[in-house]
């Protein structure tokens, strides 16, 4: 019960960091070698050496953050915001050292200028147990609408 509660709080915190645009706080959730991965579809088994919508380590995350914060990131000038809801949190694996794998589902609504888009899918988090709480070694994001043509693009992590 305690683990379930802790991991749920962790996932809620992660989505809150996105929705409040606390990009550095979000990046800090990852381990030094952590990877954020969104494969083109569910058939992919690894991010390494494969086409990927996102396959970012902390350095690339820092590039993305720097870009979004730059005053001339033209496409990010208009009003923009997201709202994530994470649910169906299901622990898949607990290691002896406290590391866990947890699956969940999300809905994300995005507003950009006058347009609203809706994304939904599943997360798989591989979390490392540290003294300060959990840290993300790998976050896999499978979007249900990921294989449809993208009407415009994704600017930050989902």
């Amino acid at each position: 019960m305690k683990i379930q509660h802790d991991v749920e709080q962790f996932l809620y915190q992660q989505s809150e960091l996105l929705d409040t645009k606390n990009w550095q706080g979000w990046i800090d959730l990852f381990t030094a070698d952590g990877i954020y991965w969104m494969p083109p579809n569910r058939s992919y088994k690894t991010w390494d050496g494969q086409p990927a919508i996102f396959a970012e380590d902390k350095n690339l995350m820092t590039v993305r953050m720097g870009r979004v914060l730059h005053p001339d990131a033209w496409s990010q000038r208009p009003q923009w915001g997201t709202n994530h809801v994470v649910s169906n949190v299901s622990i898949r694996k607990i290691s002896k050292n406290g590391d866990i794998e947890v699956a969940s589902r999300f809905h994300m609504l995005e507003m950009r200028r006058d347009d609203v888009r809706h994304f939904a899918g599943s997360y798989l988090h591989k979390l490392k147990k540290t003294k300060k709480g959990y840290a993300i070694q790998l976050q896999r994001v499978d979007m249900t609408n990921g294989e449809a043509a993208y009407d415009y693009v994704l600017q930050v992590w989902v």
Partner: protein
Amino acid sequence: MLRERIADFAGLVEPDRVRKEVYTDQEIFEREMERIHETVWIYCGHVSQIPKTGDYYTVQIGRQPMIMVRGAGGKVNVLYNRCPHRGNMICGDRHGNTGDQFRCSYHAWTFQHDGKLKNIPMMESGYNGTRFTRDNPDCNMKKAARVENYRGFVFASLAKDGPALKEFLGRSVVAFDDMCDRAPGGEVEVVPNCFRVIQHSNWKLFLENQLDALHPSVVHQSTGRAAHEVEKILARKAKGGAVPLSYHMLSAFATVTIDKWDDFQTINYPYGHCILTGYMGLRPQDPDTLAYEKVMEKAYGKKRMEEILGVNIHHVLVYPGLSVQSPLQQLRAVRPLGVDRTLTEIWHFRLKGAPEPIYRRSLAYYNLVNSPATLINADDLENFWKCHAGLASDGGDWVSFARHHGRDIEEKGVVSSGPKMGTSEAPMRNQMKAWAKYMHK
């Protein structure tokens, strides 16, 4: 309404400017689908997308839904995605394998991979004495008028007459030669993933942007700067070691300043094709490149290898539907969906026989620049939308392509931008010249 103002299509295009309606008018859009996209050679896909008999991909040519399918004996056919019976689309999925025949989901008519009718349920009892007989070609799925492939890249033309593919491509074949020659085996194969992105603008805005050498340092400044900052930190940490080339590819958008883009050159060919020369530092002397050069030298000999790796190209535009970045083995096919909506289909290819790190190098570019989470194209798409919305207004009648107009150098039908004029709008002028010719005939 438009007709009252402009007598003919040729009047829409002047050497250094174009009427805004060319981008926004529905009637013009329908006409250009008919006279350009549904007439000229349009890229369908690569043969390696459909390796086995029955493998197919659907593809849009102008307004026509088509199927590219591998037939028995290895032949690639391009057919209209339409049942001759009641018009039902035969393939509802984007791609798959149809087995040894196509079977319509409505009344179970079946067809061979070349579109020829195989069977109709109740053929005898239902159709005896009617006009639908087995030897009536109207009972077949209709084929594209012409299909040809160049080094594995399949094109179709929906018009019976016109130049052969090779004549049409002319010197833009360098797009495919440069891509394939960089493989020790002289061939590429597709990485089986297609990124698809929709932009809210006319299709021509995409093509014009591809060879616009002035825009990168303006539009992509944010990503270039952000990548450069991280690149510097990584270089300090690496202490003289190599920083992944992908950072350089991104930071170049900021560090290559406008005056440096002028060192590039545009070369413009008949039929609207054009090239932007320039090199993104893709031949550094790191261990990966040196290992690759060794394999290349073994395959081609030193002289030919130098020729191949010395090809100096940033983008090749095969007008009106393809933008090829040959040194990075990727291409974007442009599919107009409507006057103000355009789909790009983005593919990456693997150099057969090249070491894995070379594949990974261009893959990094594919993911960072061309995926639906692109760090680069996001700002282009924003501009395309803003351009289209502005053009639809009454705030002005013309689009200007005057940059370095009158300074182009023409030789034997090939137009080059002048020296130190890489940011010339010559490619846009060249595309519109071809456009006017197609539309006016």
